[in-house]
């Protein structure tokens, strides 16, 4: 999923699932946690600009289950300092892996096993995938903005 889609979905989980901890700080923390995993793609940015996509081989171990395990442990550690911040980070991390497993080919057990897993719930054709991503991202974005506006966190 694209960066905006990750941010919108993670914040939707935060806003609907943990409304008591919603604040500008937790929203930003969730957004950062939702996209920080994608930093390993940066090394392959040049190739991706040519092919218009990041292949599953560009995902390091920190972008798969071992990475999620570490991210969850770090979030739980933060929870003992600030429960709301830890939970916000946890939601961001888990939502990223959730969306990636659902919509992209991944290698969940990398480096233990290089088997690529694709659940077949998103198209693999680039044009169709772009349209699919755009529709989902726009839907998440509209719902999130409406909710944040309704709660008075966002004002125009």
């Amino acid at each position: 999923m694209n960066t905006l889609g990750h941010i919108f979905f993670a914040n939707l989980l935060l806003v609907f699932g943990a409304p008591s901890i919603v604040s500008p700080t937790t929203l930003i923390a969730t957004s950062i946690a939702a996209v920080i995993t994608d930093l390993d793609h940066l090394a392959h940015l040049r190739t991706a600009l040519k092919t218009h996509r990041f292949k599953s081989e560009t995902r390091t171990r920190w972008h798969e289950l071992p990475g999620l395990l570490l991210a969850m442990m770090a979030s739980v550690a933060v929870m003992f300092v600030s429960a709301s911040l830890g939970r916000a980070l946890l939601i961001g991390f888990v939502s990223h892996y959730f969306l990636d497993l659902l919509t992209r080919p991944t290698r969940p057990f990398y480096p233990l096993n290089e088997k690529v897993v694709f659940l077949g719930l998103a198209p693999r054709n680039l044009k169709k995938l772009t349209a699919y991503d755009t529709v989902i991202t726009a839907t998440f974005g509209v719902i999130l903005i409406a909710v944040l506006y309704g709660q008075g966190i966002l004002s125009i």
Partner: protein
Amino acid sequence: MGRAFSAFRISRKPVLTRFPIIQKVNPDTISGLSLVFSPIAYLLLSERAIFASIIMIFFILLLDAFDGAVARAKGQTSSKDGWMVDVSVDRISEAIICLALSRVFILLTILNMGLALLSCRYKKHAIIPLRQAILVILVAYYVLQWHPIFFYLKQILFYW
């Protein structure tokens, strides 16, 4: 004796093979569907809609069992790839569901994820059936609202 044995064999044939549509369904997609419903279970648990959560988690587990049945009906029984899809989907699904629960369940999710990685490393399946355990605790929580144990169940589920 031979006839009786062959009749037994026929009855052991997966029931799902009788439905032609099953041959067109990808078991991985069914696993994916069980993952799609996990955020709904998370939202229901966050809203403390216990009965609806029980139904949703039961449905997720049903889909999870169904993908294995479809794989067997299609003759994909000894595939390690299927194990990988199943285990990775299960771990992410329970991670999403446990976001609405107490730290105990989050720690159990972390433990389970570690066990999944060790299972892959040592080729031995050793994983806690966490979603099933959550379902049992939720049913107990829903049924025993009059009982003193309800207080402890509430603590375990939502506050610790």
